């Protein structure tokens, strides 16, 4: 038995990287290196990272950017592409700064042997962190290349410029990047050169960024040529399946492997609780696992059911520890303010477990070479950490494992773990062949992890002018993101309480901001009602000036918000909500129509979003639309049911996700703040959807809605 195998895949509980409170600008020095011919740029923030830090972190000290003798530019990043558009965006960043055609830029992503470790792809970090680093590296290369060209012409590099891959000087000098890269002795030319804090192009001068470039690899996707992790094929490859427990908390007592082992071409691999098989086809592997299941004896354990979930969470609080710790922030005296409020309100909001259900279930291919070195192709949002998990599982050095992540079929925070990679590697080791393994949809629903459920208890008070005087907000289990209320409140307590989750849980799009924004914004409408105020007027009274207020006012105007809706038909309801997370700002307004049977339809949505300077308008719009529609699923229909340790609705036919027909008319406006740094945008637009609809239902019926899903 391999000593390190058991329990190697730790559940990812909450996204571990919250936004730092401060970020200081650092001097970044770019070092340049000859590749024989052509050049490589290494960029480091001094004192923060560098080749040693990369090596310590398990990263390989590779360049950030290379310029080949044919003039093509290759960018290296540990970020991953799961549909959010980072491949295109990073290519645009390099093309912008280097003055080369976008078609000449390639991006090598998430290959642990070739790319620097840029951290996992989550928390909307690519835009505010990785894109600036790529731009600086490219700007450093541009600076050096112009210097090298101008030295040939004995010209002042300050007057040189590069555009469309050609360096020109007003004195008449002209040379292509390819010519310069192939016709320069880089060892000699680069000796002793570095660039201090290279200047990036001002937003006003952007030519590539700010425009909607075609999606990288679009043709490969539409022709079926792109190889997702589940499409990787290797010589002699087998297909794998793993024996799953019949229920959570079930423990394998014994398994008779004889029937499966007798099947032609089947290799059974057992290591502790891990039992799986590899076979020439997935169908044969399935049959073999069915035979294993028949010969398996399990000891079942207790597991709560979703019917009792919220009582269970509240009764099973714990201290957590580390990044799972409970948290409490207080200001003023909440108890006294509740006593003295002109009106007080209490609420209790419930958010269920839901599934990310990316279109591509977890998949991996694994191949061992003759020297104990392992290569895995898998879809994960944390390629370096998962590479480390894989190495730990087999007792390998990190450098003995190479993880390559082909652009993958969806993530949404749901692919932080490396389960499939470890399983494929284990089977490949046992079978002596490369193994491809893809989870079934059933497995994905049951054995991946879930967006945390949450119980959110709220209490608040307003004074006779409608100002919020007390705010008491406790989130049980679902997480800390956007826990802080943006409203002015002198007395407040904001708590996150860790609970022993009965299901494996982890990140999600915008994480707990979905739950926290739902409870907060729905409760704000309760406070507005207690103050006898229109919900919009109440928000504007209590919100400080700033970017959040700007999107709220813009959405209200665009939606045609009317205080009290005196002229609205009786069956209609109107709601508005807003929130900020990960440096971007959103307000959503919803109109619903009651159907007279207790049901309703979402008639229209209006969304105003602001994330600083827009880098790719078309992709941004698609991210907003996708967030909003995905948010409709969480708001209206998605909920995991479980009982006796089994997921009861783990199929698309039983767990309705949004389809074409579920898309309401959407009016979307982006405030392009070119005066502000670009923030990530793939998450925040999801957070105000559910509360806007809940508030519309409250407005229409007078009954507060406190539980998701709403339909």
């Amino acid at each position, binding site marked *: 038995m391999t000593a390190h195998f058991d329990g190697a895949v730790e559940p990812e509980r909450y996204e571990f990287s919250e936004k730092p409170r401060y970020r200081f600008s650092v001097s970044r020095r770019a070092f340049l290196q000859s590749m024989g011919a052509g050049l490589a740029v290494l960029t480091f923030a001094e004192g923060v990272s560098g080749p040693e830090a990369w090596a310590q972190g398990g990263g390989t000290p590779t360049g950030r950017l290379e310029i080949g003798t044919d003039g093509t530019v290759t960018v290296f990043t540990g970020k991953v592409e799961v*549909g959010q558009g980072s491949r295109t965006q990073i290519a645009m960043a390099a093309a912008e700064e280097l003055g080369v055609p976008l078609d000449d830029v390639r991006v090598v992503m998430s290959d642990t042997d070739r790319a620097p470790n840029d951290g996992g792809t989550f928390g909307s970090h690519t835009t505010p962190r990785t894109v600036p680093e790529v731009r600086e590296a490219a700007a450093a290369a541009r600076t050096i290349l112009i210097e090298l060209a101008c030295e040939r012409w004995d010209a002042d590099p300050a007057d040189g410029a590069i555009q469309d891959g050609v360096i020109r000087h007003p004195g008449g000098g002209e040379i292509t990047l390819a010519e310069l890269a192939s016709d320069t002795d880089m060892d000699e030319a680069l000796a002793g050169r570095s660039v201090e804090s290279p200047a990036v192009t001002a937003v006003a001068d952007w030519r590539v960024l700010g425009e*909607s470039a*075609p999606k990288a690899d679009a043709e490969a996707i*539409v*022709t079926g040529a792109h190889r997702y992790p589940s499409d990787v094929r290797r010589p002699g490859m087998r297909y794998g399946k793993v024996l799953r427990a019949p229920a959570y908390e079930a423990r394998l007592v014994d398994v008779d492997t004889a029937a499966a082992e007798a099947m032609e071409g089947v290799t059974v691999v057992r290591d502790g609780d891990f039992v799986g098989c590899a076979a020439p086809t997935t169908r044969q592997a399935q049959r073999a696992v069915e035979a294993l299941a028949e010969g398996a004896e399990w000891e079942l354990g207790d597991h709560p059911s979703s019917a009792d979930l919220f009582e269970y969470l509240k009764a099973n609080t714990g201290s957590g520890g580390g990044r799972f710790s409970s948290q409490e922030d207080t200001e003023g005296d909440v108890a006294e303010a509740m006593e003295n409020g002109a009106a007080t309100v209490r609420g209790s909001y419930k958010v269920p477990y839901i599934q990310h259900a990316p*279109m591509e279930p977890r998949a991996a291919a694994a191949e061992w070479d003759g020297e104990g070195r392992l290569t895995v192709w898998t879809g994960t949002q944390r390629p370096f950490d998962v590479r480390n998990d894989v190495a730990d599982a087999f007792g390998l050095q990190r450098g003995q494992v190479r993880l390559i992540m082909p652009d993958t079929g*969806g993530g949404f925070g749901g692919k932080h773990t490396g389960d499939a990679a470890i399983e494929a590697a284990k089977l490949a080791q046992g079978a002596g062949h490369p193994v491809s393994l893809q989870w079934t949809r059933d497995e994905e629903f049951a054995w991946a992890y879930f967006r945390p459920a949450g119980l959110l208890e709220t209490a608040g008070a307003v004074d006779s002018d409608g100002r919020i005087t007390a705010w008491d907000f406790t989130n049980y289990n679902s997480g800390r993101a956007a826990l802080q209320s943006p409203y002015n409140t002198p007395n407040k307590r904001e708590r996150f309480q860790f609970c022993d989750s009965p299901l494996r849980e982890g990140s999600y799009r915008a994480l707990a901001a979905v739950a926290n924004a739902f409870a907060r914004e729905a409760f704000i409408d309760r406070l507005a009602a207690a103050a006898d105020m229109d919900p919009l007027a109440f928000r504007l009274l209590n919100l400080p000036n700033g970017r959040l207020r700007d999107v709220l006012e813009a959405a209200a105007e665009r939606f045609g918000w009317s205080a009290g809706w005196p002229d609205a038909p009786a069956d209609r309801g109107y709601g508005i909500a807003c929130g900020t997370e990960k440096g971007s700002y959103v307000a959503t307004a919803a109109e619903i129509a009651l159907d007279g049977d207790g049901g309703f339809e979402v008639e229209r949505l209006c969304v105003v979003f602001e994330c600083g300077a827009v880098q790719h308008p078309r992709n941004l719009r698609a991210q907003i639309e996708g967030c909003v529609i995905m948010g409709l*699923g969480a708001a209206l229909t998605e909920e995991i049911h479980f009982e006796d340790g089994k997921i009861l609705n783990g199929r*698309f036919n039983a767990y309705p996700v949004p389809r074409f*027909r579920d898309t309401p008319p959407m009016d979307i406006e982006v405030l392009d703040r070119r005066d502000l740094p670009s923030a990530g945008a793939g998450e925040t637009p999801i957070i105000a959807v559910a509360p806007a609809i809940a508030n519309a239902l409250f407005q229409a019926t007078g009954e507060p809605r406190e539980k998701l899903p709403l339909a």
Partner: protein
Amino acid sequence: MTEFMLRINGADHTVTSDPDRSLLQTLREDLDLTGAKYGCGEGACRSCTVLLDGRPTAACVTPLSRAEGREIVTIEGLGEDGGLHPVQQAFIDEHAMQCGYCVPGMILTAAALLRDNPDPDPEAIVSGMNGNICRCCNYPNIVRAVERAAALRHAEA
């Protein structure tokens, strides 16, 4: 094991396989045609769509025996005269993909839809495409792409 004759993208293939194996697994594992994707195994998401005698069909629930003797078209064989099919071009033009995993199934479904109804209104597109799930929820751009493909077809005609 049984021998099956399959006609795929205009070429004949002989496959020896379990008779109850799905067309999807056979395409992906025996013929290296990985454009059709596994998404759910119950025909509920249509990532595995292929055309069977021109009709969009969930290959994950199609046994080989039902595919034999039929004209099978996968995303790899949809292009026309070595170039892209108008629906493929329209998906590129309208950014109708995020992760793209659902896109081969979407394109084949749309191609069949437009063949039967060259001038669909938005409601016809929504109802014709509703069986296909895009978890990135890129539906608005996909609808725009199908509309654009219809216009491209008209321009060609």
